[in-house]
C-alpha cells in the first residue's frame, strides 16, 4: 500500500511534479469555473493550441529554457485571445467555427516550428514530462498561482457581473471589457505555466475537467470553486501515481484521472448521492 501511494513521492522528481501540479490545481480550476459559466469552454482549447507556436519559437531562439518558452507562450496566448475576441465581435461568422479555425492553424504552426528544430522532443512539449520539472519550472508554476489568486479575488465582482449579465454591466458602467481582458490574461498564464509538467495539449485539462465536474457538486459559485480545486488536487495526486506506476506521461494521466472524477461526480449526482447538485431541486 505504502509503495503504491506514498513510495513514489520519496523520489525528488515526483515531489517536484506534485508541488507544481498542486500549484496549478489551486490556480486553474477557479478560472475554469468561470470559463464554463461564461460558455467559453472552447476558448481554453483555442488558448492551449495558441500558446504552442510561441513556446516553440521560444525554444527555437533560446533552447529549452523555461523562461524563453514561457514568455513566448504568454505572448502567443495573449495574441490569440485578442484575435479570437476581435473576430467574434467584428465578424458575423459563427464564433465556434472561427475558434476552431484559429486553433487548427496555431497547432500546425507550432508543430512546423518544432519539427524544423533538431533535438526538441515533440512529445515532451505536447504532453509534458514530470522529469523536466526543474527548479525554474517549479518557481514559474508557483509564481503564476501567486499572481492568479489575488488578481482573481480583486476581479471577483466585476467578473461575476460581466458573466451574469453583460447588458446590465454595460449599462451601469461596470467595466466589463477590462475585467474580461484581465481574466483572459490569467487563463493564458495558467495554460503556459502548466506546459512543462503536463504539456501544452494537456495543461488545460487540469483547469477545465475539475471545473466541469464541480457543477455537479454545488449550486453556489463559491461551492463550485471549492469543489473544483478539491477535485483538481485529487486528480494531480492520483494522476501522478498512475503516471509513475504504468509509465505514461503525466499530462494524459492527470487529465484522465480528472476525467474519471468528472464521470464519478456525474454518476453520484444522478444517483442522488450528492444532495445539493443541480438536478436535485
Amino acid at each position: 500500500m505504502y509503495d503504491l501511494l506514498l513510495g513514489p513521492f520519496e523520489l525528488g522528481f515526483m515531489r517536484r511534479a506534485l508541488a507544481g501540479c498542486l500549484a496549478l490545481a489551486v490556480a486553474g480550476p477557479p478560472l475554469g469555473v468561470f470559463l464554463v459559466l461564461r460558455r467559453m469552454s472552447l476558448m481554453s482549447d483555442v488558448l492551449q493550441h495558441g500558446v504552442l507556436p510561441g513556446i516553440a519559437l521560444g525554444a527555437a531562439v533560446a533552447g529549452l529554457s523555461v523562461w524563453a518558452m514561457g514568455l513566448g507562450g504568454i505572448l502567443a496566448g495573449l495574441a490569440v485571445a485578442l484575435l479570437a475576441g476581435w473576430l467574434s465581435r467584428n465578424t458575423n461568422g459563427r464564433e465556434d467555427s472561427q475558434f476552431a479555425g484559429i486553433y487548427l492553424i496555431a497547432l500546425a504552426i507550432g508543430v512546423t516550428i518544432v519539427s524544423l528544430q533538431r533535438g526538441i522532443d515533440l512529445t515532451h512539449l505536447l504532453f509534458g514530462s514530470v522529469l523536466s520539472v526543474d527548479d525554474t519550472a517549479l518557481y514559474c508554476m508557483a509564481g503564476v498561482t501567486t499572481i492568479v489568486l489575488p488578481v482573481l479575488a480583486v476581479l471577483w465582482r466585476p467578473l461575476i457581473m460581466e458573466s451574469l449579465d453583460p447588458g446590465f454591466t454595460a449599462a451601469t458602467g461596470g467595466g466589463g471589457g477590462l475585467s474580461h481582458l484581465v481574466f483572459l490574461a490569467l487563463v493564458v498564464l495558467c495554460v503556459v505555466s502548466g506546459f512543462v509538467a503536463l504539456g501544452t495539449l494537456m495543461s488545460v485539462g487540469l483547469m477545465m475537467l475539475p471545473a466541469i465536474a464541480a457543477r455537479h457538486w454545488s449550486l453556489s459559485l463559491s461551492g463550485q470553486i471549492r469543489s473544483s480545486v478539491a477535485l483538481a488536487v485529487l486528480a494531480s495526486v492520483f494522476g501522478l501515481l498512475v503516471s509513475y506506476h504504468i509509465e505514461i506521461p503525466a499530462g494524459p494521466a492527470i487529465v484522465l484521472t480528472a476525467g474519471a472524477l468528472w464521470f464519478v461526480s456525474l454518476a453520484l449526482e444522478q444517483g442522488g448521492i450528492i444532495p445539493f447538485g443541480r438536478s436535485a431541486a
Partner: protein
Amino acid sequence: MVTASAIQLEGVTLRHGLRDAVRSVSGCFAPGGLTAIVGPNGAGKSTLIRALVGLQPLAAGRIDRGGMAAGDIALLPQGSELDRDFPIACADVVALGFTRRLGSFRGISARQRSAVDDALAAVGLPDHGGRPIGHLSAGQFQRVLFARMMLRDCPVLLLDEPFSAVDTTTACDLLAIVKTWHQRGQTVVVVLHDLDLVRDVFPETLLMAQKAIAWGPTAQALTDHNLHHAGLFHMAWACTSRRHAA
C-alpha cells in the same frame, strides 16, 4: 436620488446597419410622466429606449437629458441577457442594483442588505433571498429584476415589454409597482402591446412606426386613424368592433 428632469428628443434617427430603425423622432418625456410606447413589431420601440440610456448611438438628432447622466436612467430590457443558469442567489442579483454606488470593490452595508430584503418583499418574494435564480419561474424572475430596478433608485425608469412573458397575477403585481413609481414622481416609460392596458393606466402614449405617429395624451394618440397609420390595422379594427358591441 437625482430629481427627474425632462428628456427632450430632437430629430432622433437611429440605424441598425444601413436600415433606419427610428426616423426623426422629436418630442419630450415630461418629468414624472407615465408614458406607454406602442407600435407594430419592428417599429423601433426597443431601439429608441436603448438610445435613451446611451446604449444605441444616434445617427442624427439630439437627446437632451436635462442634466441627468445616462446612468440615471434605468432600463429593463426585454428578454434580458441575464444568464439564468448562473449559480447566484436572488438577493445577490437584487443587490446589483447598488452597483453604481458600490463600484467593484466596496462592501454592502447592513442597511443595504435590509434594503435588498425589503425590495424582495415589495415584489412579492419575501424569504426568497437565498434561492438560486435557476429555481425561479419566469414570473418570479421578472419580480427579481423589478426589485433590482427599485434599488437602482433612478429618476427615470424604462421597461421593454415587462409583462409579455409572465402570468396574469405577476403582471398585475408588477403593474401596481409601476404605478407606485409614478406616484413617487419617477418618470416611467413602458413599451407595451396591450392597448386596453395602455388606455386604462397610461396618461401619455407615444405611437410609433419608425416615425412618431402620435405623441401625447393617450386618448388623442390612440385613435383608429392613428392606429391605421401605424400599421396596427387589426388593433384599430378590434377597438372599433368592441366599441360597436358596447
